[in-house]
């Protein structure tokens, strides 16, 4: 059986006394587009930081295609491409230099790096901007460049943390379309963090994260059935409300 692109079990993390994630478990199957839905402050970025091992979790495990992120981080990290929420481009470099630098960070150089650079730029419609400085790109082009960069080493798992922030409607739709195509045609497992309901399609897998806890996980119809709601917005509100209620009841009982 194919191992999931990403599997998280019982992941918890705290910053001092503040619990950012509480026993989070989720799976991103290979070739799937999984939307991670949560409000600002839900813990999405902390989750991404732990998966990419910017820092380690307090407890729990993270596996990328079966490779443990802590114990076998080179194997895990070499299989994932990341687009962080905040822009992480070096504005002083050209488009080509950005990609060649990133390829080098994955041990890819020479003709292979050049070939991958040409390929990903072609894929994301940036081939004609090869020698332009990154600072001269539009916001949408910068985001496309970041995704192209995340794919330079041909990862099988793509993590995107609210990648459409600051983009106009057209750029947003184009970006989602391109990433969905990567999942469907190239078999990439995709974890797409968002707080925007209209970025989620009924064919996606959905994970709802709220205040550091997973409220629901499954295909969109499964989550709707679990919440007994007609659409994603209603389902999200019901799940969040139910959590708030149970927390209040627990507090009252204590």
């Amino acid at each position: 059986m194919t191992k999931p692109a990403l599997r998280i079990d019982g992941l918890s993390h705290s910053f001092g006394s503040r619990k950012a994630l509480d026993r989070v478990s989720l799976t991103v199957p290979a070739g799937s587009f999984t939307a991670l839905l949560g409000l600002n402050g839900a813990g999405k970025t902390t989750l991404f930081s732990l998966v990419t091992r910017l820092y380690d979790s307090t407890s729990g495990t993270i596996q990328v295609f079966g490779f443990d992120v802590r114990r076998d981080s080179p194997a895990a990290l070499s299989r994932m491409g990341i687009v962080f929420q905040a822009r992480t481009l070096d504005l002083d470099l050209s488009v080509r230099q950005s990609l060649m630098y990133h390829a080098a960070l994955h041990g890819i150089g020479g003709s292979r790096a050049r070939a991958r650079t040409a390929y990903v730029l072609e894929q994301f419609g940036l081939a004609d901007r090869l020698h332009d400085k990154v600072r001269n790109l539009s916001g949408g082009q910068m985001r496309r460049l970041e995704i192209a960069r995340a794919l330079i080493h041909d990862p099988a798992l793509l993590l995107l943390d609210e990648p459409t922030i600051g983009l106009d409607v057209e750029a947003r739709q184009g970006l989602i379309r391109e990433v969905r195509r990567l999942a469907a045609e190239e078999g990439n497992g995709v974890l797409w963090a968002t707080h925007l309901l209209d970025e989620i399609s009924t064919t996606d897998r959905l994970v709802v994260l709220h205040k550091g806890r997973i409220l629901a996980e499954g295909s969109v119809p499964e989550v709707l059935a679990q919440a007994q709601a007609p659409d994603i917005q209603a389902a999200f509100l019901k799940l969040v409300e139910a959590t708030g209620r149970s927390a209040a009841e627990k507090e009252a009982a204590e």
Partner: protein
Amino acid sequence: MSARERTSPLTPGGYAICFAGIVWREALRFFSQKGRFLSALVRPLVWLFIFAAGLRSVLGVSIIPPYETYVLYEVYVTPGLVAMIQLFNGLQSSLSMVYDREVGAMRILLVSPFPRWFLLLAKLIAGVFVSILQVYAFLFVAYLWEVEPPMIGYLTLLPVLVLTGLMLGAMGLLLSSLFRQLENFASVMNFVIFPMFFASSALYPLWRIQESSPLLYEICRLNPFTYVVEAIRFALYGQFHGSSLAIVASVAAAFLILSLFAYNPSKGLIARRGAPAMAD
């Protein structure tokens, strides 16, 4: 090629490519920021042309090793200015690390599959490489200003610059891990650079300092920057000053170990506090 069947990038060739990429990026950034290169060059030259020239008539320097004759104050102060270039560069590159962390470019470096110690060391060495370029550009201009050490000195200086650059770069790396925001770090530079520079043998020989203030003399002796200056001073005259080199190497190792600890994903300061803009 499929990532799913890919072999580990952690081969000797992979390490070499990654290292070259990090150095290349630092060099590109340095050369694209012409203002940075100019200010790195102008700063010590202002000291040499104005400060040292002004003090020439007031401060004579007696015969102290490695000098074999009386030397002009400009000659005496040149190794200190070389060290100053490296001090500024070490702090400048750590400043860029704080900036990189703030804007996120540092995250891209740290999510590379190569070990974190290797990535940070490569970045450190890249910074040292840039500082050495600045030093030799400064020494060229100083040579035209009649600061003329023996030719062999330019050669013996090189390995010492690598060591002193590593020490000051590692210090900057450690400092960069302590500060989350650029604004905080910029103010810290003033508290680090100026005391380190002035409370050392960069501008005055230690024996002169001892005559005027025994307390300041002791502070200078405890300041590792003094040994950076002395190691450079002797190397520039074709000699290796063993005790200074040993102290610089030890301090460099200590700073390096501490900074690697600070950037360790499971134990370090960043793990405990989270990086900026990450605590969603």
